[in-house]
């Protein structure tokens, strides 16, 4: 578990807050679904099969010279609920992998740019994630990773249908390209639905912060490709990449509009958000995300001057339930977490004179 403790104090790749267009684009991510040809898909796997699949990939991954020193986490046996939630919050494993039962594991690189999930919905789900808008580099990296494994295992592949997946919605490339965006001004100006309504026609889907079925918390949205068959990987990357600058432009126009037309209201909104975060005595993670979202925009618009983006990014991740508990080093129930979260925010947002609360 040594690897995880170390991760907790850092920010993780997806909230590093750097890279192209990072003011609005949080992260770029691609995942590939792969299955071994000689085992049933996960739902039909016996535990013996799951163990064999896990071992096959573990050995294949160990054989890739470039992958010395990956963090290996056996999700099935050694991981507490908090640790699993912690990895979900960092976007290193999916909720599906976290909540499944039976043999399953994940390999993570130290920089947290990629993870290899074994025995998720498919035998292997690999994902690469970079901060900011960086899809071409992400594709290049994951394509290379796929090649390395391809030399060592035999994938289920069909001449006409491509890579075979447990769910027919992923068949073909097995690829999902997603870009996470922070769009607070489009939400305030109520333009967001209009933007999203045009996306399905372009073969794109919108999801919340933590993927399928999750809410759009803190004005974070993920845009991804809808179909996986009949288009090449490069085309799918292009399909998503082409629409992102348009949405960025809308968001910037909305921000400019707000600054021009209602600067006072906007300034008031972000200042109040900042004020609550600095002084609250108990606060939920939803409210925290919501307020940090306003503050983040306020900093970029120059309305808040004594705060830096890396601090905000750190707070986004560190105030989530599992992170908070890992940083505090103890299990906390919801009410205790809300108090701890308020203390954590106070400690990091304003210099506390006496320092008697919180120990971070």
């Amino acid at each position: 578990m040594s690897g995880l403790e170390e991760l907790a104090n850092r920010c993780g790749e997806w909230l590093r807050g750097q890279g192209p267009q990072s003011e609005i684009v949080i992260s770029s991510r691609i995942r590939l679904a792969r299955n071994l040809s000689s085992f049933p898909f996960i739902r039909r796997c016996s535990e013996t099969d799951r163990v064999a699949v896990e071992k096959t990939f573990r050995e294949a991954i160990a054989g890739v010279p470039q992958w010395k020193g990956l963090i290996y986490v056996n999700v099935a046996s050694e991981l507490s609920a908090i640790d699993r939630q912690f990895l979900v919050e960092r976007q290193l494993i999916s909720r599906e992998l976290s909540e499944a039962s039976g043999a399953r594991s994940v390999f993570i690189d130290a920089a947290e740019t990629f993870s290899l999930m074994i025995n998720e919905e498919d035998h292997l789900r690999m994902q690469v994630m970079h901060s900011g808008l960086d899809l071409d580099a992400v594709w290049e990296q994951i394509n290379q990773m796929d090649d390395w494994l391809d030399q060592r295992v035999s994938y289920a592949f069909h001449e006409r249908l491509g890579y075979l997946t447990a769910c027919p919605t992923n068949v073909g490339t097995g690829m999902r390209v997603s870009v996470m965006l922070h769009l607070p001004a489009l939400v305030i100006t109520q333009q967001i639905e209009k933007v999203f309504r045009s996306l399905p026609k372009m073969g794109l889907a919108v999801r919340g912060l933590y993927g399928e079925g999750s809410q759009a918390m803190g004005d974070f949205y993920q845009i991804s490709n809808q179909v996986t068959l009949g288009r090449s990987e490069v085309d799918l990357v292009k399909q998503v990449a082409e629409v992102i600058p348009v949405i960025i432009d809308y968001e910037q126009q909305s921000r400019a509009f707000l600054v021009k037309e209602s600067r006072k209201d906007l300034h008031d909104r972000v200042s109040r958000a900042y004020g609550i975060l600095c002084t609250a005595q108990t606060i939920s993670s939803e409210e925290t995300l919501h307020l940090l979202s306003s503050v983040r925009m306020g900093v970029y618009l120059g309305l808040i001057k004594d705060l830096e983006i890396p601090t905000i990014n750190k707070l986004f991740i560190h105030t989530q339930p599992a992170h908070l508990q890992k940083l505090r080093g103890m299990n906390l129930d919801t009410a205790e977490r809300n108090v701890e979260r308020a203390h954590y925010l106070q400690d990091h947002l304003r210099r506390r004179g006496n320092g008697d609360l919180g120990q971070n």
Partner: protein
Amino acid sequence: MLRNDLQPAINGRGRRVGRRLSMKCQQCEKPATFHITELTGPQPQELHLCETCAKTYLLQNEGGPAAVAPTLANVLAKQLKLGQAAEELAKLDQRSCPQCGITFYEFRNQGRLGCPHDYEYFERELTPLIMNIHGESKHVGKRPQRAAGPSGGTKLIRLRREMEDAIKKEDYELASKLRDQIRELEK
């Protein structure tokens, strides 16, 4: 996710959202432009809402458990009802893949296939489903550099299953025979 193009579409939440003309919103007096069919409950439920009410309704309903499997299952159910008589459907439901043993009924209930061979074994049923989802039927992307042994792979799936069955039935003679075959194929 909202979809309001004319062609009805299934989103990731077990819900069909389409757009038709000339109807009143069920919650106010405005024209209903969103026609939502909830597919997650025991019975499909129809809703006709204006843009504003639809937005509120769909946002309210975000955040529940993801429902990809029932969605797929429902697309499939519709497709099958159109093409098959009840007895034919019952017969189809009982067909099971010789390699992994999954029945068609299990697949359409769970929305997940049992093994790679299912794509061939249930090809007739899957082809229209795949067209429905992707609008295409042919992969044009990357291919593995290492060609997979075509049938050796899926045959292993069957042999391992049979071996586990034999062990359960304490037929160790059969189990060890199967184990030898598996080892031979795994080489």
